[in-house]
């Protein structure tokens, strides 16, 4: 089994995107199959085993969220990466709850999709239940911020806060995300929440003093 090439299924109704993803991933030595809609994707998942499903959320007919729900239940060995249009954070949060392993926002570069797929396949099979703890979500959020995948990062941060609302790190990261998106007011508020939770939490203090008026150029502290 170990010598076999990882198998990836791409489910997207747009021919362009299927082509772009196939083109980018083929050269990494994966075996690629494509599905043109949700029903087709489930049919192919039933017929053969896949390591990874790249799933577009918006497809005519059966939508991506439904496919995700079914796939997570019936084929737990297949990791699912959600492909979304930009700025759909709510969907991202929902998808993480349903067990999606990660997200990628359109448009993306060939390098970006290759790196993400490689990481997920490397990450091994963290079961979704295990992934629902604070530390994992926090780690995923930081990684997403570093890759500038902000919707995904926001989804992870919110999951981390839901898992443990009493710790400062996640609020600090939420502030960082808001600052990146240009919402300085919201960012300051969350840095303060982080400091209220733990007055000695240094990254939040640094972010707070750096982002005053006028903002002092400096690095965001992810903690």
């Amino acid at each position, binding site marked *: 089994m170990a010598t076999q090439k990882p198998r990836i299924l791409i489910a997207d109704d747009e021919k362009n995107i299927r082509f772009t993803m196939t083109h980018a991933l083929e050269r990494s030595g994966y075996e690629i199959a494509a599905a043109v809609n949700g029903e087709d994707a489930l049919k192919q998942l039933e017929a053969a085993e896949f390591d990874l499903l790249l799933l577009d959320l918006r497809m005519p007919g059966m939508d991506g969220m439904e496919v995700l729900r079914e796939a997570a239940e019936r084929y737990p060995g297949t990791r699912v990466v959600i492909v979304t249009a930009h700025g759909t954070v709510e969907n991202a949060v929902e998808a993480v709850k349903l067990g999606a392993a990660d997200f990628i926002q359109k448009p993306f570069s060939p390098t970006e999709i290759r790196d993400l797929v490689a990481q997920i396949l490397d990450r091994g099979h963290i079961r979704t239940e295990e992934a629902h703890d604070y530390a994992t979500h926090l780690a995923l959020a930081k990684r997403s911020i570093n890759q500038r995948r902000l919707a995904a990062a926001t989804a992870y941060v919110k999951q981390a806060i839901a898992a443990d609302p009493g710790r400062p790190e996640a609020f600090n990261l939420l502030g960082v995300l808001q600052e990146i998106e*240009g919402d300085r007011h919201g960012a*300051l508020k969350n840095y303060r929440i982080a400091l209220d939770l733990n007055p000695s939490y240094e990254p939040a203090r640094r972010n*707070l003093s750096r982002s*005053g*008026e006028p903002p002092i150029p400096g690095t965001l502290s992810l903690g």
Partner: protein
Amino acid sequence: MRAILAGEGKTLYYLARQFTAKGHHITIVDRHPDECEALARRLEKSVVVLGNGSDPAVLEDAGARQADVLVALTPEDQDNLIACQVARQMFGVPRVLALVNDPDNEEIFKRLGVTEAFSATRIIATLLEEQAALEEVINLLPMAEGRIQVAEVVIGEKAPARDKTLQELDLPADTLVAGIIRAGDVHIPRGNSRLYLGDKVILIGRPASFGEALRAVAGEEA
């Protein structure tokens, strides 16, 4: 001072009028023929040039080589940016100022060589936020080029800070109560100093958290 104003609309007229009255030499660049005609009629002392301020030939006609400053005021950010850059780099105009319509571009313009970029959106937003300040605020004084603000705040009947000690106040981290004026005497406060009805409080802080500090002391709008 020799200034070129490139833009359109009424602002241009009033600015030119104000500056010529002070004895400055103003040249106006406007791309609308009808506006140019009206401006030339109303502003006898100003030179009016028809054309786009980002066009080197137009700027040259407008006397860019001798100008001390160019102000770009059109409603299109790209036109304002390019006008400033052409003025500075092709004609050596020492100061170039631009109106920024999209506040996101303020920082970008500065990084691309515009001496000063001002965003009407941001100025108005700041004014509104400062206005939200409260009748109880007697003076609002920006210091250190606006990086610090100082205000005198009266503790009113409904003020959240009334009858509380400073320690109990929910003040943002970068603000400070620097003095309490009670019955004409100035007290230097300590953490356990208590605020009473009618006290005047001297508040110092960074502008970003100043609104929050004012609300913590004097409450939501009066």
